[in-house]
């Protein structure tokens, strides 16, 4: 006669018990997943009725956690993911701007690089961080919680400008560096965008950067600004125009690659310190604000 195996019963009990025991993690994951799905559906619905939404009316606003209170530049990857970074530390974050979630973060350099980082962009398969003195840090995108090595390059433009914005023009293969404070007397009185060719020319030499100058008075137009200090630059993926944001003047303006002003207008209200700008292919304008009177945040608008 077979004796009743106590251990067998215990092990056998694990099965049904496991089935019944819905873990806290699983519950939370299900709840989060449902919430994120609801957010995405809501955004889609808003975009489908975009005619009823004005250009200054936010369609999503995500409050950022404390470690992103000094959020600065924004960059969109080729597959439409949003990368951002803090002001002082070389940590890059991926934010799902449609669903309001910090997806991952990775660190640049070990030990982590420090500096006055002002802008971020994607150049083919590399990510570039720009320091205000014109030094570029190049690295590959890392996995969550990873540490990635980097290469450093000085553009040599730090004497002429203090930079705060950067984007990459894939059509011309040039980096666009937006100048916040112009140090070169000859350039003063203009919005200055340096165009820095990426890669060597036919002779194997790196072409020198060239400035695109747009006189202040052309940009300011009827607005009551006395100065313009751009804090970030993006390229409109549809028109190819350069779109800039200026945090101090709370200004938003666009120029063609030739330097002709397309429009200039005040930012929608409630932008305390707009530090980053990005425009998606599906007509979303994304603006990041550093924490000032409230928490740092990312705001989404309909882009025509």
């Amino acid at each position, binding site marked *: 006669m*077979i*004796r009743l*195996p*106590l*251990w*067998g019963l*215990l*092990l*056998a*009990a*694990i*099965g*049904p*018990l*496991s*089935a*019944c*025991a*819905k*873990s*806290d*993690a*699983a*519950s*939370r*994951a*299900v*709840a*989060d997943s*449902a*919430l*994120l799905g*609801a*957010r995405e559906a809501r955004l889609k619905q808003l975009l489908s009725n975009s005619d009823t939404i004005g250009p200054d009316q*936010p369609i*999503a*606003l*995500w*409050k*950022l*956690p404390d470690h992103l209170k000094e959020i600065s530049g924004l960059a969109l990857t080729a597959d439409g993911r949003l990368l951002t970074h803090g002001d002082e530390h070389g940590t890059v974050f991926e*934010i799902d701007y449609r669903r*309001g*979630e*910090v*997806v*991952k*973060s990775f660190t640049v350099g070990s030990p982590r690089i420090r500096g006055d980082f002002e802008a971020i962009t994607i150049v083919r398969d590399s990510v570039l961080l720009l320091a205000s003195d014109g030094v570029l840090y190049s690295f590959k995108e890392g996995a*969550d*919680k990873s540490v990635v090595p980097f290469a450093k390059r000085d553009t040599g433009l730090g004497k002429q400008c203090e930079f705060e914005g950067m984007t990459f023009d894939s059509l011309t293969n040039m980096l666009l560096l937006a100048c916040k404070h112009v140090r070169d007397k000859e350039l003063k009185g203009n919005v200055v965008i340096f165009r820095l060719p990426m890669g060597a020319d036919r002779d194997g030499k790196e072409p020198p950067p060239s400035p695109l100058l747009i006189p202040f008075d052309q940009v300011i137009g009827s607005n009551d600004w006395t100065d313009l200090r751009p804090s970030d630059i993006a390229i409109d993926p549809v028109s190819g125009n350069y779109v800039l944001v200026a945090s101090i003047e709370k200004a938003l303006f666009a120029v063609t690659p030739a330097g002709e002003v397309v429009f200039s207008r005040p930012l929608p209200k409630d932008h305390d310190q707009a530090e980053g700008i990005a425009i998606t292919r599906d007509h979303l304008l994304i603006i990041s604000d550093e924490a000032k009177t409230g928490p740092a*945040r*990312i*705001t989404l608008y309909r882009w025509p």
Partner: protein
Amino acid sequence: MGFFKQLIDVLTLGSDKPLRRLLAYYLILGAVVLALFYFVPSAGHLIKGDHIRTLTSNAQLLEDGLSGAKEKAADVPTESGLDLALTTVVVMLSTLALMLPVSWVFMSARRTRDADQGVVQTLIILPLVVAGIVLVVRTSLALAFSLGGIVAGLRFRTTMQDVRDIVYIFLGIGVGLAAGVQSLIVAAVLSIIFNFAILLIWRYDFGRNVLEPTANAQWAEPLSDLAQRDIDRAVPDRELVLALSPKKAAVLAKRFDRVSKILGPTQKKPRFNSVLAVTTEAVGEAQARIELVLDQLARRWRLDQVITTEGKPAALYYLVGVRKSVSRDRFLTAIRESAGNTILTAELELGDAASQEKQAAK
């Protein structure tokens, strides 16, 4: 237990080898887990460690600045008491199943047979407690600090006899932690790798200093004869011989052999039948006085060895053929009277031949 023992016996073809039996146990456990996956796929979250990924992931929901906090509060369900109780039971049973083989290995894979029962029981209980604590603390910083304070108050500190025992305790904590964060796969891998590593280390005596091999490692020579139980010349304490260093064992064997040849059972009647061992701090004077007695009471005698050690009394060894008419007590009394204060101790060890003769005389 009997059922499992039988099952393990079947799988190992009745082998008593620890590696095979351990492998059989884990195979059975693995089969149970596979069956679990097959029949109850939803049980996977406890085994695969979804919870630990949630804890360590950077993914973080952002607060919606337009619709506000009410959005989250409305959608996130809370865990029921039954769910929590069942999760705890599953975690505890799994921890038990994973720590049992560890306790077996602890009791088996050691050179001495003094496995501390307290440690064995701790190995089973500690992971259960750790897992329970982790289930309670979860991600609460406040609870974690409270726990720190309580543990500091308890002063759970002890001195282990063997450094390796501490490693077992650490493993117990590791398995408990993994189970507590509902990552049973990590707990299982910890248990499996640890047990097999310990068994292999024990099996191959890993880490022995090859420049100073143990006496056991040089078994064939010269200890083999000395340590065997079934021969007349065997050293009585086999474990003592095995504990000697090779050098000391060789010296002992040499002396043992020599004396044994002289005094032990042989075909011919031995020339000497006893060994007189005397310790003294005045070798010359003692020697002269002892030899006077030997001339009177022994048929023949020979000074076999004088061993002098710095800081210790010298030892004199005489091979003596004691006359039949002289008893051991009389012989030693005469030696002590003659030598007086010049000797510290005197012992007469009778050989086999002498003993047999004395026995026959009686």
